């Protein structure tokens, strides 16, 4: 194997053993974050028969900027039931990175099981405006360039480079929403019109739906994983990399950080049969397919991906959960799961999951 992460993973086998998510909805006015999260936590625990007190480590991902208040994650902790006190941590990142932190905790041998969850309610605010607060606070954020406009810059760069065109982007959109037809949790399913330009060249159909949702997974190490799951989704490698923040110094038609993360995660050692990509915009799937060397034989986003449901802070962890679930039910033997953060795919995480031979 190559890469630090694989050597470490080889040292202790760790698997995703359960996955649960909400139905992702445009609005959930009647629910607080805790109320949205609670059923998912109960469901993921029920899938393994574990109780809160059986979990060795808990880690979550969320952002105060969606909740509109400081320390919003402390309320979610009430939903976990942290009494007696639990060993627990939180990242202000997509839940995929919370899973990464939990994976390192299991690698140390201090924990055999971990509960990982994340959630986001985008509906109370204007998420296009909110995401501008991620940008350089002195030189860029004061201009309020919104997330669709930045993605459109990337899309136009791809078209200019001859990497794609508008019909190809429309095909990504329709394939994703068709696939979501068999995903009862998805927000946009079946035939969805491409619609008008939101920011040229991106049309409504090229953009993700805005919505609310939550996700939870359980990790377990070694024999514990086999006890809890008939066919565990073993994490053969997982790695994440970040790029420069300034869009002006990046090559937007490529994703060197996604490629490097994939290489470190061992994704290129053998072909995968499935890939769950966190590509909120159609054009970003084009970038990722190229960077991750995914050819026509790989099933891309059978869940519908982020174009069918994009609860911010949860959508990346959902990709890992969806990939793992396909391994659990025997629909995949080796899957790649990807998560992203920041403008125009600035930060990327890649996990390679495998099931035992059947």
């Amino acid at each position, binding site marked *: 194997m190559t890469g630090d992460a694989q050597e470490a993973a080889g040292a202790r086998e760790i698997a995703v053993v359960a996955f649960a998510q909400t139905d992702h909805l445009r609005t959930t006015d009647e629910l607080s974050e805790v109320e949205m999260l609670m059923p998912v936590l109960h469901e993921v625990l029920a899938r393994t028969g574990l109780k809160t007190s059986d979990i060795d480590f808990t880690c979550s991902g969320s952002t105060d900027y969606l909740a509109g208040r400081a320390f919003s994650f402390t309320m979610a902790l009430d939903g976990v039931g942290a009494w007696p006190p639990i060993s627990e941590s*939180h990242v202000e990142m997509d839940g995929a990175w919370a899973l990464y932190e939990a994976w390192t905790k299991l690698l140390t041998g201090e924990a055999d099981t971990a509960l990982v969850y994340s959630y986001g309610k985008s509906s109370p605010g204007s998420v296009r405006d909110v995401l501008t607060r991620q940008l350089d606070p002195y030189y860029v954020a004061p201009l309020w360039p919104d997330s669709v406009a930045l993605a459109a810059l990337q899309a136009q760069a791809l078209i200019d480079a001859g990497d794609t065109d508008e019909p190809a982007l429309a095909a990504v959109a329709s394939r994703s929403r068709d696939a979501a037809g068999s995903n009862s949790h998805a927000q946009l399913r079946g035939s969805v019109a491409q619609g008008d330009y939101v920011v040229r060249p991106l049309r409504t159909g090229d953009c993700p739906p805005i919505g609310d949702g939550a996700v939870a997974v359980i990790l377990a190490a070694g024999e514990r994983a086999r006890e809890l799951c008939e066919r565990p989704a073993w994490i053969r490698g997982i790695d994440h990399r*970040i790029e420069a923040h300034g869009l002006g110094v990046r090559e937007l038609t490529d994703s060197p950080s996604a490629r490097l993360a994939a290489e470190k995660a061992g994704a290129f050692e053998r072909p995968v049969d499935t890939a769950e990509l966190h590509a909120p915009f159609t054009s970003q799937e084009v970038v990722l397919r190229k960077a991750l060397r995914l050819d026509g034989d790989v099933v891309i986003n059978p869940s519908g991906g982020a174009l069918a449901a994009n609860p911010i802070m949860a959508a990346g962890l959902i990709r890992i959960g969806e990939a793992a679930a396909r391994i659990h039910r025997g629909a995949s033997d080796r899957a790649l799961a990807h998560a992203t953060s920041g403008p125009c795919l600035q930060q990327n995480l890649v996990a390679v999951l495998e099931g035992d031979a059947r």
Partner: protein
Amino acid sequence: MSKEPVAVVGIGQTKHVAARRDVSIAGLVREAAGRALADAELTWADIDAVVIGKAPDFFEGVMMPELYLADALGAVGKPMLRVHTAGSVGGSTALVASNLIAGRVHGTVLTLAYEKQSESNAMWGLSLPIPFQQPLLAGAGGFFAPHVRAYIRRTGAPDTVGSLVAYKDRRNALKNPYAHLHEQDITLEKVQASPMLWDPIRYSETCPSSDGACAMVLTDRAGAARSPRPPAWMHGGAMRSEPTLFAGKDAVSPQAGKDCAADVYRQAQIVDPRREIDAVEMYVPFSWYEPMWLENLGFAAEGEGWKLTESGVTELDGDLPVNMSGGVLSTNPIGASGMIRFAEAALQVRGQAGEHQVEGARRALGHAYGGGSQFFSMWLVGAEPPTS
């Protein structure tokens, strides 16, 4: 499989002040990181991954600022993690970084925490109105003062104990060139005459608002062997959380704090912390939290913590020095405050604490807490590598 031993080989801080108007947020964090690298005699290229922490993003008004800080921290092309566990975050961030070494994912990791309070308004950031929730309009002092009163009533501690802590910590700060408050003319009388803010907490018994960053370079056994200066070795580390409010919660001595300390002592094979630990750097944002945490962490029996403070045991030249750096009472860049505690513990066992060095410190505890006394993170570091 045994864990890889974790060593601290580089420590860097900014001079903490009320307002660093000469640097951006990026400039502030880079200054601390550069100093940690210089201390370790390493370069940016030697760093495998970056783990950053800070308190709520609303404090500076930057959402997920690690994205913007990737360049300043040399993280481009590397893994970068952003931890947020309320006030304990500086400690938790160091522990997350230590797991990357202990789990053998990486060899050398830069960890950093910061707050630039001058670009923010922490009181406002903590006081956004939330539907169906009790407002926290009085800031942190209003939240914690009733817990302090409960401690005093429970233990019968004399009213003066809080002022003794503040007087000690502010004098310790005079020996620490990085501390924010340097009150050359501090006297016990001045502390006791300062205005009452949240009874029984007086103005001079509260922490300042600071701009500052703290960074550490953590590495494995091989990295420690190359270290130009003595490393601090991690002997134990743990985090514990409990809900903010619930029936039966002991807000004075939370169970999560007791459990966290017990886990660290178990890992470090400490049976009697009072005898076996040479120095303690704990998170004391309001003076009375020193005696409260002394009990919570097992250095004194319940109801007895204030006696250690009153008898001078926790002075810099006492039997169990507490907050040698001047503590949070002298320096509070909120998100960094936990990491500064962890770093001070490491400085002590490396023998590099300068004027506030505890003679012969071999084992030191770093402690942080946050939220409504509900998130705890601690580590115990030693001058010798761990034996198991």
